[in-house]
């Protein structure tokens, strides 16, 4: 299985931001996860959801919406795992 970090960013307090990443192989089975890079010792910080767009027969775009559930900015990293 191939894993990696596709992007890093910052989600402002109590907001949702959406990123997209394109030209992924539609034949691949991919799982997206997101973790905060900012530390918070008291409450959960982020949730995320994934939308998909088949832009051609050979390409998929993933749209990853990340919600910051805290009242401070949170740095995040979006990770992918490609099943063989």
């Amino acid at each position, binding site marked *: *299985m191939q894993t990696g970090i596709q992007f890093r960013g910052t989600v402002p307090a109590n907001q949702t931001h959406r990123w997209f990443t394109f030209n992924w192989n539609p034949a691949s089975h991919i799982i997206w996860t997101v*973790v905060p890079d*900012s530390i918070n010792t008291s*409450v959960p910080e982020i949730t995320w959801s994934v939308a998909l767009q088949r832009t051609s027969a050979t390409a998929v775009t993933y749209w990853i919406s990340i919600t910051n559930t805290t009242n401070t*900015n949170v740095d995040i990293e979006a990770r992918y*795992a490609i099943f063989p």
Partner: protein
Amino acid sequence: MATNFTDHNGTLIQFVRAYLIFWGSAWASNPPPTPTTAQVTDAVRRILSGGYLTGLKQYRGIGQGYILGSTTVTSSNPPQGFTDANVSNFIKGLISAGTIPNIDADNQTLYIVFMPKGTNASNSGFIGEHTYYTNASSQRVHFAWITNNGTLSSISNITSHEIAESMTDPEGSAILGDAGTCSGGGWCEIGDVCQGTTGTVNGASVQSYWSQADKACKVFDYPAQNFPFVGTQFTGTVAAHASHRWFTFNWPAWQQVFWTVMPTTIDAANPQLSCSVAVQRTSGAFITYWITVTNTTSVPVNFEGRYEVLGRWT
């Protein structure tokens, strides 16, 4: 006297954002120097993303980090016999000019200045150092400098030493050796007592550092694991038409974990459960997952909370 380290509860860098600065025209020479800026950058990336720093979790949960960016400055050269003040003034100037970013909001930034080959510090006994200065906003700016003998392994070893020490003791107030642990002056830190013991982690040369948990100098790496692997973390019951949230903590931040729920109560007619996941980084090294399970039926539903560990940083 036996080596012993104590946590003095001062500032740490929990999850480092390393900004690499290559100082001097020699870094952009033609032909390029040995090693090149690209080779040094790759070594630092391997240090940060490999398992080398995972041993720091014993020190208040310190984690790893990443390269925030890099720049090569050819408009000036470090003076032969440079001092900490020369380096801090250099960094101040770059931040002021907007050449490099200011420290991040959480002050996890570590500026690492790489010297051209043959440029040494005023104290020739030092081949690398980390310290800080206080900026105009009364924030402490953490930085390190690394000398260059023309070999990648030396630069990589020194850099690993300075990163580990910067994270555990960026201001001389946190993880420090007890009196008598170090023979030299200055801050007695976890790399200082382990010089001369090196290894290779994730393809990068590294120096060992002191593990208080093991009472020894160690070169840490990721545990041997085959990915993916799966399991059931917890079981529970959600009442009819209700949601309930569970949390599970101290998951290594370098593991990539996916969560699912599986009903164990049979229902032949309707969908029963949905779930959502929230994530919290409680320290540099550890993640807490919050899993909310919703029962969409009119009867209680038992379920398993299952994890799939997909992989790790490399």
